[in-house]
């Protein structure tokens, strides 16, 4: 599904190398987790994959189902099936959440040559998915993420994911700032979307999310590289011993 090879990325504005050769392959239907200390480049990887400005790819490639991602505009990547749940969802005053969702949904359908949904049809789709995530109608009417609590913002990201039905979902610290109940809602939401055609890359700082969303593979990222990969037990190891031990071992 997603194939990243030798990806090196620096900041566009300064001479700072952030990703120093990332290799990663996520198969269809798989869930991979990336863990790693703050500042190791996890968010940068997610931004580069989704096409944010400010980064320069100096080497390597990233493909979604064999198609070069790095050449596409962000909206084209989305239409091709890529989705990033932001670590810090953006507040957009004045744009209603529902308008935002419907515009995105229809833009993607249009880009893929599919029929756009009417307001009524779309409302039905959203209501159903919102209910599962305990997102009430009031939250749909409000401007995008404005005045939302941390947990509400994260649930709103998962709602967008559920509505847009991407193939490749990247979740950047979706668990941070969530209490136990919200964590349960979010992971139930993710698990409900798991199927053989859809893959996940779950970036997390903590092991606890992986109790709910069991990964197939766990990668440890440090200093712009993936330094170790293994099964779910790797996450437990990190939880127990911290990153320091692991780093020593890698060195």
């Amino acid at each position, binding site marked *: 599904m997603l194939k990243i090879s030798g990806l090196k990325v620096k900041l566009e504005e300064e001479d700072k190398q952030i990703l120093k050769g990332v290799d990663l392959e996520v198969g269809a239907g798989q869930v991979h987790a990336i863990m790693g200390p703050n500042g190791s480049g996890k968010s940068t990887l997610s931004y580069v994959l989704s*096409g944010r400005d400010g980064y320069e790819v100096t080497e390597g490639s990233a493909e979604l189902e064999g198609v070069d991602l790095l050449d596409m505009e962000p909206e084209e990547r*989305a239409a091709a099936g890529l989705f990033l749940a932001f670590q810090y969802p953006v507040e957009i005053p004045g744009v209603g959440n529902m308008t935002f969702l419907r515009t995105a949904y229809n833009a993607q359908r249009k880009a893929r040559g599919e029929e756009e949904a009417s307001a009524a049809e779309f409302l039905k789709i959203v209501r159903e998915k919102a209910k599962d995530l305990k997102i009430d109608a009031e939250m749909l009417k409000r401007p995008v993420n404005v005045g939302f609590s941390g947990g509400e913002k994260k649930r709103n990201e998962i709602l967008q994911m559920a509505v847009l039905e991407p193939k490749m979902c990247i979740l950047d610290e979706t668990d941070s700032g969530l209490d136990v109940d919200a964590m349960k809602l979010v992971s139930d939401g993710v698990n409900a979307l798991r199927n053989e055609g859809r893959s996940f890359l779950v970036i997390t700082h903590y092991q606890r999310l992986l109790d709910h969303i069991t990964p197939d593979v766990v990668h440890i990222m440090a200093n712009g590289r993936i330094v170790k990969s293994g099964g779910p037990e790797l996450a437990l190891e990190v939880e127990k011993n911290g990153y320091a031990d692991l780093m020593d071992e890698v060195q």
Partner: protein
Amino acid sequence: MALAQAKSDATEARLSGMQIPEGGAGWARAARQDALDRLTGMGLPQRRDEYWRFTNPAEFLKPETPRAEIALDAPGFDDTDVLRVVFTDGVFDAEASDALSQEGLEIERFADAVTKHIHWIKGLLGVLETAGQDRVDRPFATFNTAFAEDGVVLRATGKVSKPVHVEYRRSDDTAEAVLRHMVRVEDGAELTLLESGVGASRLNTGLEVDIADRGVFHHVRMQGRDHERRAATHVFARLGEESTFKSFTLSLNGMMTRNEVIITLKGDDAVAHVAGAALGDGRDFHHDDTVFITHDAVNCESRQVFKKVLRNGATGVFQGKILVQPDAQKTDGYQISQSLLLDEDANFLAKPELEIYADDVQCSHGSTSGAIDETALFYLKSRGIPEDKAQDLLVLAFVAEALAEIEDEDLAETLRTQLAGWLERRR
């Protein structure tokens, strides 16, 4: 004081061959003559005048009316049930208008009202305009008092159910129109006035609104989409006790637009809101909002909310003043003017002013100018929304605060649709 030579030359050139309208009752002739005298005394504006530094008055000074292409699809208020009053090339168009009759309302042509020896506008024509010259000359308003021949005269005596819609039309590409509308809202009465259409190659409108105690007046105006519009407009309002005045203008394109609003809160507990959104594309676009609000009574509220979206060398100007007189305690004054610059070529010039002589006053003002929020733009694009569409959403969001000032949701929706259309067409 003698006028500077350049100013008196320009004034003379502009007024040469112009005469105040013939006929009319004695009081009307006197008011017009008085205006003409005042006008020659103050002179037409020059770039160096304090309130013309950001806006070049040259287009309004040319003795010859400039030729302007006639725009085909001027937006109107097609979905609203209105009493339609049409002016074609600046003259009342009976054929295109509805019958001038409506419950709770006296309505007639200005051209008729000025011929009557006894008429309530006798006590109002030029009165608010003259008072509005107290601190700053507003020569094009005085010009309007002197030369306007037609317009609509409205006196609301009850809650008027249908809005009066003044629609400007053009058939002549060098039409010059000078129109004067007079409004009196009686104690407890309510009236909504709508304006739209292309008007003229060069349009000068004046609106004097006198609102008695507890009266309510709403004004919603659409200017556009004529690209070569040159318009100088003035709205003068005087508010009685517990009265309400709300005015909103949406301006799309146009070449040179100067909208002045001059409001005096005369009765206690009155409320005045004035807002506008202007969207312009291109180096030949210049839009100027100049507002002057005087608090002259206790416990009044005033609000100014102005938004401008500019690209491609377009220029936006905001000059807004709140003046609080010594006795106007418990004044609540708010002013915000913001511009969204869609590229580096666009210009926004703002001059906010507060002048406060009372001590128990709450006044705030702010002016900002900024580019589109790149983080928000990326967020929208990352969800599959193409760049131009994402930008449109952010533009609509930006002007939403101004549109929220329109009380009637259906009218607001009409304007939102016009805006969306403008964005779709890219101008």
